[in-house]
């Protein structure tokens, strides 16, 4: 086997990488008649079998598994990460930027809605209007929402005892007030959908 341009070649001139790339397919006409290729395929077949065997053994080997503590830590972080999603910029101070995750904003909005008697908040969505903004050292700009143009859609279930139009007005006020107090965001649009009525 010769080296050519840093890549090992067989005596017949083929790159060994090419042989490996097709190792799971039947031998070609050339490979069936070439001794170099037959020898390489046999060696690579053996390597693949040994690798597969070791992989299977590791899979069943308790010593190769992470401890439950490590697994729980990884899963907790992964679950939290999924929930965090995009960022909404809140302020830029002389010291740096401040932003809030869209998920935290959603939770805040649902909390605000649920403080109103007869209202059970369900889903909340911040409408997408991404801007090409970034913060040095912070998260990437790919997931940034324009903090000056926050529009949301909120779905709720209402008690059958409340008057819907009046409750909608109160709900918009409540959500707007609490979000403003916590984050200084002034909502540009709050769309509310009543999905369900419940007896109370």
């Amino acid at each position, binding site marked *: 086997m010769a080296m050519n341009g840093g890549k090992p070649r067989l005596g017949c001139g083929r790159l060994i990488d090419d042989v490996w790339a097709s190792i799971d397919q039947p031998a070609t006409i050339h490979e069936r008649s070439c001794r170099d290729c037959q020898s390489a395929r046999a060696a690579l077949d053996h390597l693949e079998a040994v690798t597969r065997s070791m992989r299977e053994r590791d899979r069943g080997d308790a010593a190769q598994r992470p401890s439950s503590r490590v697994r729980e830590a990884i899963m907790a*972080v*992964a679950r939290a990460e999924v929930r965090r999603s995009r960022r909404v910029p809140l*302020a830029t101070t002389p010291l740096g930027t401040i932003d809030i995750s869209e998920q935290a904003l959603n*939770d805040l909005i649902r909390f605000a809605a649920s403080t109103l008697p007869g209202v059970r908040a369900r889903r909340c969505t911040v409408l997408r209007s991404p801007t090409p903004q970034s913060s040095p050292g912070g998260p990437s700009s790919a997931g940034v929402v324009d903090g000056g143009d926050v529009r949301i859609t909120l779905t709720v279930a209402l008690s059958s005892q409340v008057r819907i139009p009046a409750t909608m007005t109160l709900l918009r006020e409540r959500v707007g007030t609490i979000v403003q107090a916590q984050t200084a965001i002034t909502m540009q649009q709050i769309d509310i959908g009543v999905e369900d009525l419940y007896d109370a």
Partner: protein
Amino acid sequence: MTREQPFDARIVDLDSIADTLSTTLGNHPGVIRLEPTLRSTMTRWKVASVGHLHRNLRHGTPSPTVAIRDGLVLSFTGNVLTLHMDLATSISNPALGLARETQEVAAEVIRASGLSVGHIDVTILAIEGAPAS
């Protein structure tokens, strides 16, 4: 003759500053916790692995330029320390005001360590009910 300004060559114990920031910010009223993220966790493992290798293979190498704690990423360049914080805050405190306070607190800790303050960016990752006392 004495000299008030520090010499250029200095040893910065970034891990010590990270620990101080973690404790100080974690105990700040209204901060429920400093939130670990997948990014900070993976970076921490990477930094720890590289640091371990350096300690074993290259004795006497410079002190690390990045330190990671739950919810904190510290980067040190020149004499400037840059910080990113991920916070979970209490609903009983205005989140934006609290984030500003934590920036100030972090800046004080950094200055007290004799370093210059770079960017201190804050992300609020959760607003939760205050823990039961």
